[in-house]
C-alpha cells in the first residue's frame, strides 16, 4: 500500500521574509546557535508544560534552519522509515508578494533546488511537488503569461499540483487565474488552497484595497484594519463557490478543514467555515479537504472520524500533517500515530486511516501528470 502525506513543507527559513512569525526566532538561533543549545538544555530540565513547548519551538526552528530543502526532507522522511512506500506532497511557497519584504532566497531558487533534489536517487517518486502560484507576481501581466509560466514545470520538471495561499493577499477568483483554472480542469491537476485563519497573512497596507471581482456581502468586509482579520476576505471557503461555478470540474482541496476552532466550536459565528467546506464537498465530488495542522488538536478527532464514516464526504478527506510548521505545536510522529490509532478504533469494517492516507490521495493526485 502506498501512503501519502498530502500536506508538507520543506522550504527553509531563507525562503521566508524576515517579517513573518517564526523567522525572527530562526534568525536569532542562526546568529546565536548558543540560544538553541541553551533552550535544548532548559527543555531537558523538565519543568512541565513550558519545557515541552520550548523543545518543540526549538525543534521547529532548527528544522527550518536546515541549509537545504534536502536536509529538511530527510528529517521528515525519518518519521516514516518503517511505513514502507510513503510519498509526500511538497508545497512550495512564494512569499515575495505578501508585503513582508523580500526573502533571502527567491522563489526561482527554491523551485530549481527542488527539481535538482528530485533528480537524485529515490527522491523523484517520494517528493510530489506542488507549484505555488501567486497571480500578483509582476511578470504575470495576464492569465495567458501565467499559464505559459506554469506549464513547463509540469510538462518538463515533474510538478504534479498547484498550491495557493490566498491569505497572502489575493482572491482565489482573481481574473488572472481563469486560464490557469481552465488548464488545470482540463488536465485534472489538483489545486490545494490554504484555508484556515493563521498567523501567516498579507502584511502590506490595507488602505484602499480594491473591491474584489465577486463581492460577497456575507463574507467580505473591506473596512477591517488588521491584516490578521482581513485575511478572512481572501481565505473564506465561500469564495470557492465562485471558482467552482466557473470551473465545476476543477479538483481542489481546501486545506486544514478550516482549522481546529471551526471544527470543534459550535454556535453563532463558529463552525461556519467547516460547514461551508463540508457543504461544498457534498455538492462537488471534486472538492477535498485535508486535516493538516488541525490534527494537532485531539478534540477534532471525533468530528474527523464522523466525516470519515459518512459516505457523503468520506472519500474527500486527505491525510496531511503540515510538517514542519506543525512541529511547534506537536511532534510529527505523535500527531500521526494518535490520529491513526483513533481512526482505526472507530470502525472494524473499514480502515479509515488507510482510506484517508492511501485511497483518497490517490484519486486527488491523479492527473495528466501523475498517477499512483
Amino acid at each position, binding site marked *: 500500500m502506498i501512503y501519502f502525506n498530502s500536506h508538507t513543507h520543506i522550504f527553509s527559513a531563507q525562503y521566508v521574509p524576515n517579517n513573518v512569525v517564526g523567522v525572527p526566532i530562526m534568525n536569532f538561533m542562526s546568529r546565536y546557535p548558543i540560544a538553541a543549545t541553551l533552550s535544548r538544555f532548559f527543555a531537558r530540565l523538565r519543568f512541565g508544560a513550558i519545557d515541552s513547548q520550548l523543545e518543540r519551538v526549538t525543534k521547529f526552528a532548527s528544522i527550518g534552519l536546515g*541549509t537545504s530543502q534536502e536536509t529538511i526532507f530527510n528529517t521528515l522522511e525519518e518519521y516514516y522509515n518503517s511505513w514502507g512506500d510513503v510519498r509526500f506532497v511538497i508545497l512550495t511557497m512564494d512569499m515575495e508578494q505578501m508585503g513582508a519584504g523580500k526573502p*533571502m532566497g527567491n522563489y526561482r531558487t527554491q523551485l530549481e533546488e527542488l527539481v535538482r533534489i528530485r533528480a537524485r536517487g529515490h527522491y523523484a517518486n517520494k517528493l510530489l511537488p506542488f507549484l505555488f502560484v501567486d497571480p500578483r507576481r509582476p511578470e504575470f501581466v495576464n492569465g495567458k503569461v501565467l499559464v505559459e509560466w506554469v506549464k513547463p514545470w509540469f510538462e518538463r520538471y515533474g510538478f504534479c499540483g498547484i498550491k495557493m495561499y490566498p491569505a497572502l493577499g489575493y482572491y482565489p477568483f482573481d481574473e488572472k487565474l481563469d486560464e490557469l483554472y481552465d488548464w488545470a480542469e482540463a488536465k485534472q491537476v489538483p489545486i490545494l488552497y490554504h484555508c484556515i485563519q493563521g498567523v501567516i497573512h498579507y502584511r502590506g497596507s490595507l488602505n484602499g484595497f480594491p473591491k474584489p471581482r465577486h463581492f460577497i456581502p456575507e463574507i467580505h468586509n473591506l473596512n477591517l484594519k488588521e491584516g490578521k482579520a482581513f485575511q478572512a476576505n481572501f481565505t473564506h471557503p465561500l469564495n470557492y463557490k465562485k471558482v467552482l461555478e466557473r470551473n465545476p470540474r476543477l479538483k481542489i482541496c481546501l486545506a486544514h478543514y478550516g482549522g481546529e476552532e471551526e471544527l470543534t466550536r459550535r454556535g453563532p459565528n463558529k463552525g461556519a467555515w467547516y460547514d461551508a467546506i463540508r457543504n461544498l464537498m457534498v455538492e462537488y465530488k471534486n472538492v477535498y479537504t485535508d486535516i493538516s495542522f488541525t490534527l494537532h488538536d485531539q478534540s477534532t478527532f471525533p468530528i474527523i472520524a464522523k466525516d470519515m464514516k459518512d459516505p457523503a464526504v468520506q472519500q474527500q478527506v486527505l491525510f496531511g500533517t503540515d510538517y514542519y510548521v506543525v512541529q511547534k505545536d506537536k511532534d510529527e510522529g505523535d500527531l500521526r500515530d494518535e490520529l491513526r490509532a483513533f481512526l482505526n478504533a472507530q470502525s472494524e469494517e473499514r480502515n479509515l486511516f488507510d482510506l484517508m492516507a492511501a485511497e483518497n490521495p490517490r484519486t486527488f493526485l491523479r492527473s495528466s501528470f501523475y498517477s499512483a
Partner: protein
Amino acid sequence: MPVLVDVIISFALIFLLFSILVSGMAELWQLIIRKRALFLHDAINDVFNDHLNKNYAHLIYTHPLVDRLKEKNTTYPHYIAAGTFADALIDIIRNDHQLPEITFNHERKSYDIKHAVYSSDQAKAGDGIVTDFNAGIHAMAESDLKQLLRTVSFGADDYASLKRNVVQWFNDYMSATSTWYKRGMTKMLFGFGIIVALVFNVNAIHIVKELYDQKVMRDELVNYAKEYVAKNKEFYDGEKMQNIPIDLQVQRIQEAYKESRALNLPVGWRLKDMTNRYDLPGMTTDIILYLLMSIPGWLIAAAALSYGADNWFNILSRFINIRTSIKPKE
C-alpha cells in the same frame, strides 16, 4: 623622565595582562556564536545572492564541495579555501542553465529523469568547462553578478586559467572583507573591554594616579615587565593571538589572571576606596559619586583594552628599550 617611562611601562603591563583576557574572551565568544562562519556567509551572500536571477550563495553553500565543510546541517563552514570556492562556483554556473527533466511515465507509474548533457561531460575531464561556464553566464538575466562573472572569465581559455581567475578574485575579495571583519572585531573587543573594566574595576585614570604616586608598586611592575618581555618575546614575534589554538588561549587567560592577582595591581573593588572619599553624608551617596566619577576611567580603560595584547606588548618592549638606553645617563 624615568618616572614617566616607568609609569608607561607599568601601565602597558597592566593593560597587556587584561588585554589577554579581553582578546581571549572575544575569541571564545566568536567561536561560540560562529561569528567567522556567519561573516563569511554574509560576505558571499552580498555578492552571489542575485535577486534578478537566483541565490547563487545558497547554491554555493549546498554544493557538495562546500556543504561537506559544515560541522552541522544548520551551520555554515568557518573557512572556504579559494580553490574549493572556485571549483564549486564554476560547477554551479556551468550547470545552471539546464535543469534535469523529470517526466511522469504513466505505464510504469514512476518518474523518468533526463539529466542535462554538457559539453564538458562528454570530452575528457576539464575540456569544455569554459564553454559551459560562459553559456551559464549568457543564460543569466543582466545583473551585477552576471557582469562580475563575465569579467572574471575574461582571458580564460581553459579550466586552469578560469579557476586561477576565480581564485584571484576570491582572494582579493576576502582581503577587502577582512578589513570589515576587523572593524566588527574592534567593536566586540570594546564591548568585552567594558565588561572587564567593570568586573575588575580597571579605571585608567585611577591606575595612572596610583602608579605615579606609588614608587614601590611601580618598581615592582617594571621589574616584572622586564622579565615578562624576555620570557614572551618569541611568542609575540610569532603567532598572533587569534591564530593560537583554543587550549593555549585558555591557558594564557588563566596565566594572565594569576599574574594580575599576584602583582597586587591598582584594580579591583574595595569598599574603603568607594566610601569616605568625598566627605559626603551617607555611604550610598559616596558610592554613587564614586561610580559616576569612575565612568571616564572605565571608558578609557575599555578603549585601551580593545587595542589588543600584541599592540600593548610592542609598546611595553619599546619603552623597556628606551628605559635601558636612558638609565646610564641618569
